[in-house]
C-alpha cells in the first residue's frame, strides 16, 4: 500500500477498496494470492468454492462474520472458545488445502501431526 497517516491512507483505502481482512474473508484470499500466485478473480473463486459461498459473499461482513464462527477459523470480534492465532491458521490451512509456514513450524516443534 504505502505510507501516509492512518486516517488519510489506511482507513481511506480500507473503506474504498478492501475485502476487510478477518472481518470478512480478505485474509483467505490474500493467502491464495501469496501461496499460489492467483490473481484476484481466481483467488476469490478458489476460496468461495472451498467455503461454499459466492465470491461476492467473501467481502460481506454479515455472511462472513457468521460463517467464520461456524467454521471456527477466527473472528474479528472476541468470542470465547473460537479458534485464535495459530489454532485458527491450522484450521484455515486444512480448509483451503494449503500449507501455512508457521503451522508447519508449529507441528515440527510440538511433534503433533494431523
Amino acid at each position, binding site marked *: *500500500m*504505502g*505510507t*501516509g*497517516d*492512518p*486516517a*488519510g*491512507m*489506511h*482507513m*481511506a*483505502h*480500507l*473503506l*474504498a*477498496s*478492501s*475485502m*476487510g*481482512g*478477518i*472481518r*470478512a474473508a*480478505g*485474509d483467505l*484470499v*490474500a*493467502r491464495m*494470492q*501469496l*501461496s499460489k*500466485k*492467483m*490473481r*484476484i478473480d481466481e*483467488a476469490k473463486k478458489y476460496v468461495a468454492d472451498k467455503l461454499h459461498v459466492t*465470491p*461476492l459473499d467473501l*467481502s460481506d461482513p454479515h455472511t462472513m462474520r457468521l460463517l467464520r464462527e461456524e467454521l471456527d*477459523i*477466527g473472528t*474479528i470480534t472476541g468470542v470465547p472458545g473460537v479458534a*485464535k*492465532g*495459530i489454532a*485458527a*491458521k491450522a484450521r*484455515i490451512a486444512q480448509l483451503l488445502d494449503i500449507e*501455512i*509456514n*508457521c*503451522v*508447519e*513450524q*508449529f507441528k515440527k516443534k510440538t511433534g503433533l501431526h494431523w
Partner: protein
Amino acid sequence: MTKILTRMGDNSNVEFTKDELRQEFIDGSEFAAQKAKIPPLTENEIDYLVDMFAAPTRIWGVQRGHEVVMTKDGCVNALNSSQMSSGVVAPVNREVGVRLYESMLGFDSMEISHNDYSVKPQRFLKKLEMLHVEILMETTIFPLLYGFMPNLGLYFKTDGPFDNPYDLMQQGKIEEARATQEAAGEKCLEDCIEMSDCMVEMGADGIDYDTVASTGDGEFAAVLKSTEHVAKKTGLPVEIGMSTEMVTGVHGSIEYNGKRLAGMWPHQQLQVCEEAGVSIFGPVSTTNSKKSTPWNLGKALVFVKSCTDIAKVPIHPNVGMGVGGVPMFETPAVDVVTRCSAAMIEIGKADGL
C-alpha cells in the same frame, strides 16, 4: 460554468471545469504512454474517471464485489513512528500495532519490519527481529510478511564501507563506479538472503522487498537474485514493491537473464520479477507535486494497466503518499485517496493494493 474541486499533487485544492478535468487525465495518460511506449487510457476509461472526480461526494469506492486485498509495507510506522513516516507517535509497540491492523482496521495482510526500515540496520537486530516475528506468527490469523528496503545507498561511503559511485562518476571514474556498485550489490544480496532465510525459519508467510531499485539497477539486480533464492530454495512467496516507474541506470549495464535492467518501465520490471519467482508485484508511479491529482492518476493508471494486461501474478500497485496518483503530503485527503484507490481497481484492474 460549474467548477470541480479536486487536488494538486501537493494535496492543495484546485478547481477545474469538466473539460479541463478531462484534459488533465488525457495529458497524464499520454505522458506515461509516450515515456514507456504503452497504450494510453481509452475514451471510456477517461469518461469513468471524469464522472468519478466530478461527483461532489467526499469519498468514492469500488462496486460491491470488486473489493481486493491489501498488502502493506512499513509495518506500523504510521502508528508509532514520527513525521518521517507520516507517523502519529501512538504509544503502541510493534506487536500491539500489528494486532490493531488485524482487528481494528481489518487489514487483509500485514508486514513486520523494524522502524529503521533498511536491511543493513535490520541485520544487526536479527535476533530481536526473529523473536518478534515468531511471537506474532503465533498470535495472529492474517498473513504476515517480513519486510525491508534493500537500500543499496546505505552501503556506500559515508554511510557504508564501499566507495561512493556518485563521487567516482563526478571524477570520470566510470569503471570504478561500476565496480563499487557490483561489490556493494553482492553485500546487499548477502544481507537480503540472511534476513529472508531467518524469517522463513520463524514461520513468516513471505518476504516483502520494498522501495526496490531506489539506488538503481545494481539494487534491482540484488533483489531479483534474492527473490530467486527465497522462491526457489524455500518455496515461500516474495512481494516486490518498486520505488519509482523507471529503473535508474546508476550502473548502466547490469543484466538479469540477458535483459538490461537500466531504463526498465513497470511492465518490463514485472517480467524480470516473474522470472525471478515473485508472487506479488507492486508497480510504482511517482506523484509530480506540481501537477494535478487527475494528471498523476492518469499517468499511474497507464503504468498499472501495462502490468495487469500481461501479468501472471497478482499486481498490487503502490498507492501510498506520493505514489499511484496520491498526493505527496503526510496527511493525504480522503477525497482523492479513495478515488485513486477505486480507480486502481476499476480501471487499472489491480488485484490488490
